[in-house]
């Protein structure tokens, strides 16, 4: 279980809607915390708390720029989640394509009545 823990944590970090909003904003480029506060309409301590969670799983990185701290997205940390969702989506898509075939036949049977 241990080796996948980081990934599960990243999944957890990203499951929170506000944190996803932060990631969306950062996807547009590096931002200081004040920008994020303005975008999200949340109190700064709350934004900082979310940023801390995102930093802990490596989804967000920070650097100093004079007196400011700039936050940026680290897509690599999110790749395992992306891959997992994609795999899950692919399996369900294939399953549903088979279901489409079954439904096509049921539709024809209904129309033939």
């Amino acid at each position, binding site marked *: 279980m241990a080796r996948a823990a980081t990934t599960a944590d990243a999944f957890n970090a*990203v499951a929170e809607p506000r944190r996803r909003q932060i990631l969306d904003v950062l996807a547009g480029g590096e931002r200081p915390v004040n920008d994020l506060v303005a975008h999200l309409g949340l109190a700064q301590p709350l934004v900082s708390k979310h940023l801390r969670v995102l930093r802990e799983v490596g989804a967000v990185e920070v650097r100093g720029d004079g007196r400011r701290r700039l936050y940026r997205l680290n897509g690599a940390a999110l790749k*395992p989640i992306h*891959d*997992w969702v994609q*795999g*899950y989506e692919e399996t369900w898509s294939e399953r549903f394509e*088979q279901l*489409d075939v079954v439904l096509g036949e049921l539709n024809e049977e*209904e129309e033939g009545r």
Partner: protein
Amino acid sequence: MTVAGSRKATVTLPSDTQILITREFHAPKELVWKAWTTPELVRRWWHANRGEMTVCEIDFRVGGKWRYAMHAEGFGEVGFHGEYREIEPFERLVSTEAYEGIPDADAHAAVDTLTLTELDGRTLMTVLVEHPTKEGRDMHIESGMEDGMQDAMNLLEGVAAELR
């Protein structure tokens, strides 16, 4: 690609214990319901081209049990089982789902809610998978991740993890 292939399933993560699958079908909801709940029809689509379905048991009543299993190529047997909790014909189906590949499968069973909404002869399906605990959700995710890390196993990723 077939026309059907252009309608991809969408997977989102509404909260840290939920997974939501959404898809539209060109069929009335009565037929989608039938295909979802009739064993000989389920056998034809549930395998997702990953292998052959070996067990498909459906005792379709509230409190009734279900069990699906398949032989997934390159992976072996994978099984899932659960119990029907709520049945509202053609619109809503609530059932539990335990993945037999993890310890204490029943203790970590998810609750799945299927909803069907028909509009102009098309049916929007949603399947909400809710894990009782973050631990259960993590096991679900991790069981899929380990296989997903091997390229050769990519096709089996979903089946290994959770595929109901």
